[in-house]
């Protein structure tokens, strides 16, 4: 019922696939009220995730996520670099150094650790039209979801998707898009959409873990 290194490896790789498939769309959304490079950056992040996951053959999960997060931060991708780097490293922040088999409780710690790292980095919260609109509901869902790791990640993915969808109704409060105010209503936030893809991929990868 828990997650081991092979599962995490598959989940990260799956998340990378989901993100990589949609870079065109992400660039498009970002070009409305941003500078249009979110797809580009997510593409690079996904490539790094894929590469690191494939190359990962030893070492603990927390260490892998921390290294991957650090690597993502150095991707030179504007806001998304530090944000994704922190989010990915955050998933391992509350895991112990030698935890190699993650039970349900440990999986919940992945989410809570991730959120607290992200809250440290940004003051954006639900309704501000950022990645946090996907992340916060995902963490909330993971906290209360019943079942094993697969169900927890599925609940998180669904919540993230709903959160991303909800950003259509919000006015941008952070990032470049902020300057467009009310006109951002109707368009979803690029970062929230990519975050939902990230969690969708993690869930897809976790499903076969059971």
């Amino acid at each position, binding site marked *: 019922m828990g997650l081991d290194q092979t599962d995490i490896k598959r989940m990260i790789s799956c998340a990378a696939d989901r993100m990589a498939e949609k870079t065109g769309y992400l*660039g498009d959304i970002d*070009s409305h*009220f*941003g*500078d*249009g*490079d979110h*797809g*580009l*950056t997510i593409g690079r992040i996904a490539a790094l995730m894929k590469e690191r996951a494939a190359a990962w053959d030893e070492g603990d999960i927390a260490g892998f996520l921390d290294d991957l997060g*650090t690597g993502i*931060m*150095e*991707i*030179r*991708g*504007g*806001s*998304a*670099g*530090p*944000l994704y*780097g*922190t989010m990915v490293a955050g998933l391992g922040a509350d895991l112990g150094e030698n935890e190699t088999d993650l039970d349900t409780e440990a999986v919940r710690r992945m989410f809570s650790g991730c959120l607290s790292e992200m809250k440290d*980095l*940004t003051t954006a919260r639900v309704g501000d039209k950022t990645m946090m609109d996907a992340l916060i509901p995902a963490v909330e869902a993971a906290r209360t979801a019943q079942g094993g790791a697969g169900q927890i990640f599925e609940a998180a993915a669904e919540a993230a998707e709903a959160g991303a969808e909800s950003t259509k109704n919000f006015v941008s409060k*952070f*990032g*470049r*898009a*902020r*300057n*467009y105010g009310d*006109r951002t209503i109707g368009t979803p936030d690029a970062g929230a959409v990519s975050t939902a893809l990230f969690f969708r991929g993690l869930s897809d990868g976790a499903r076969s873990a059971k």
Partner: protein
Amino acid sequence: MKMKKFINAPENLTDELLDGLALAHSDLIERGDENMIINKKLADADRVTIVTQGGAGHEPAISGFVGDGMVDISVVGDIFAAPGPQACLDAIKLADKGRGVLYIVLNHAGDMLTGNLTMKQVKKQGLDVIKVVTQEDIANASRSNAEDRRGLVGCIPTYKIAGAAAAEGKSLEEVAEIARRFADNMATLAVAVRGATHPSTGALLSDLGEDEMEIGMGQHGEEGGGRQPLKTADETAEIMVKALVNDIGIKPGEKVMLIINGSGATTLMEQLLVYRAAVRILKEMDIEVVANYVGELLTVQETAGFQMFLARMDDELLRLWDAPCETPYMKK
């Protein structure tokens, strides 16, 4: 508007342009690891040093101002994109000559995130670093909401003044105090008449009507709210000067620095016309221009438009602005 640029592979753009910069100015700067541009005289520096960071695509900013008397290391991300915190931390360590490092960050989403993550590590490692943020765009937030103000061309004179203060042998606290004093008394307003294309994605950065201009446009085409029919040089200068004077609260009898910074496709001819008008309007308000720059310092690709920058000056700031410096795109 289709992208028409002389580039090679978009993914190598930043790397190649930094290569070109270092090659063209090999007497002054060199490339370090991780997209760093380093002052060649840094090795001999026994003083506070200056580190900054930011995206590429704004040439000559910011790496064109690395050199003696300005920036010691600039850490470059990718086009319009901040570098990561590890690269910045490495740069700070490399720059630190035991007298501390002034770390200047422009207020943009990605840069601020990286800046904060870098400072976390700086503190963890007990390094002697003070971070100063430039945030002087008056278009989209009031002075009391400074955290919402973008960093525009004001970083360049801030580098110059901080660099000169460091060169005089001042302590890190003193250099930081001077940089903050200058930055707290500066303001910028941008105007655009025609957008540009993102050199990696080809996406149009902003989109203005045939007869429109926009006052308050951000550095990457972000809107600022002031869309209006195109005005003359004199009229535009008047709107902008008044807004800037008002924002800083400059009084008759005070002295200022005035910069007209071309954004890319606006000619120096036009910039000189705007400068002329601005000086006249300031004179009418009994405000004296004691320092200036007219030309391209921080561009936004081939955007047509300019940034008007104003700062309150005192004798010390003026002395530091006039002090010698030797960088690829500013020599005094």
